[in-house]
């Protein structure tokens, strides 16, 4: 199963932006469960895009003004939700922020 781990935090989480993942990445790479991911620049540097009636609408800032914002993401491939929970719980950001686990939509084989 593939899951996206969305790593969220409030403004205070920015202090951890350059912390690294304290061995988490190494362990997960070794287990072969990580398919990709990155940390993100802060939401103040975001640009939001919508197209309505062929018109391009741009907004400065994130798509939703919520207290918690996505600060990074990891795409993992593991056995099941229990393993995904274990992987997310081990991530250092789980200790100060929130990690949302989203199963990735199964793509029908003919589109792969």
């Amino acid at each position, binding site marked *: *199963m593939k*899951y996206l781990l969305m790593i969220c935090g409030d403004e205070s989480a920015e202090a951890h932006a350059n912390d690294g993942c304290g061995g988490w990445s190494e362990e997960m790479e070794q287990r072969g469960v990580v398919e990709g991911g990155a940390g993100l620049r802060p939401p103040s540097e975001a640009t939001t895009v919508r197209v309505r009636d062929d018109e391009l609408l741009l907004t400065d800032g994130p798509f939703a003004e919520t207290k918690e914002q996505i600060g990074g993401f990891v795409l993992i491939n593991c*056995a*099941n*939700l*229990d393993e*995904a*929970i274990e992987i997310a719980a081990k991530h250092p950001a789980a200790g100060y922020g929130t990690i949302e*686990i989203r*199963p990735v939509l*199964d793509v029908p084989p003919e589109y792969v």
Partner: protein
Amino acid sequence: MTGAVQEELDRVFRDEWGQVVATLIRVTGNWDLAEECAQEAFAAALKNWPEHGVPDRPGAWLTTTARNRAVDWMRREAVGAAKLKEVAAMIPDHDDEPDEPYDVPDDRLRLMFTCCHPALAMEARVALTLRTLAGLSTAEIARAFLVGESTMSKRLTRAKQKIQHAGIPYRVPPAHLLPERTPAVLAVLYLLFNEGYTDPLRSGLSSEAIRLARLLVHLMPDEPEAAGLLALMLLHDARRDTRLTADGELVTLEEQDRTRWDHAGITEGVDLLDAALRRGTPRPYQVQAAIAACHATARTAADTDWPQIAALYGQLKQTPVVALNRAVAIGMADGPAVGLRLVDDLAAGSLVGYHLLPATRADFLRRLGRYAEAAAAYRDAVELAGTDAERRYLTRRLEEVSR
């Protein structure tokens, strides 16, 4: 149909539904299909058994029939040959190898842990447990939780979809996860029990909870907290019929007719608890069961071992409600003045708005003969009480101290 066959069929339904569904989920991986095939198997039994008699091993008959329906369906839907073969091979037909055990005993345990997975919302866990394990219909569950049938149906569908799409595994968690996952199962059963215990119209939920807890104890004989929970339920349930008068008036523990308690239930609960306690440090359900046992085994209200109850409350995590109960026990042991002081210390805490806080104060004030203050506290409690029976009881007390 003869009454005997109908009765047997009802019993078999209660006893076997969970096993049939649990096995079918394991082999088909499809919750809806499993339920449907189980339903069809029971419908077939309803037709077949009155004529041909109840088979020797009704569970095996039902599982085989349900399996055959699943194979038919998969054939129609052209499910892969490998999967089909796996399903077809899963159990011997009931004619051959009659001595072969037909069930894998932990399918129901798998089902229980999956239904109670903490990634599901509590209300979904409860509904799913009642539907798949206990075999209640969606309409029955909807009635029990006072929601419309379509709402309940959506809740069940969403839960099953999440299990499938989010990859919640169909298994008993590995040993290292059990300490965090077993309490999740116990919490669902206890919630179910309490739903039925606090509302006499829904007492069926308590019976289901007890039945499922018995099953859990049977499936997890090494888990003392499962036994502790079952003991707790049995000890509370033993007093069920004496808690209300025929007119629905509340009867306090102190005033209940102890000769009408279910003494067989109490003995079973106490034995279970004793066996669990011998296995080491008691955990919360066992401690709560021990408190219930102190009440259940006191011959009269005056014989209640309040110091022991106070000590047991001291072993529990000190939530505001536990602290209040502990204050009551200490007050009963050391006198109402001591109890009142403890309750007043709690008053500033997070119990504001909880009717048992002023009700407890009122009770201690009444025992101290401070009737005017007691009346004021009873009035506060009436204001906050959640049910009519509680309001009527508190009003009765209020009238007593106002005379």
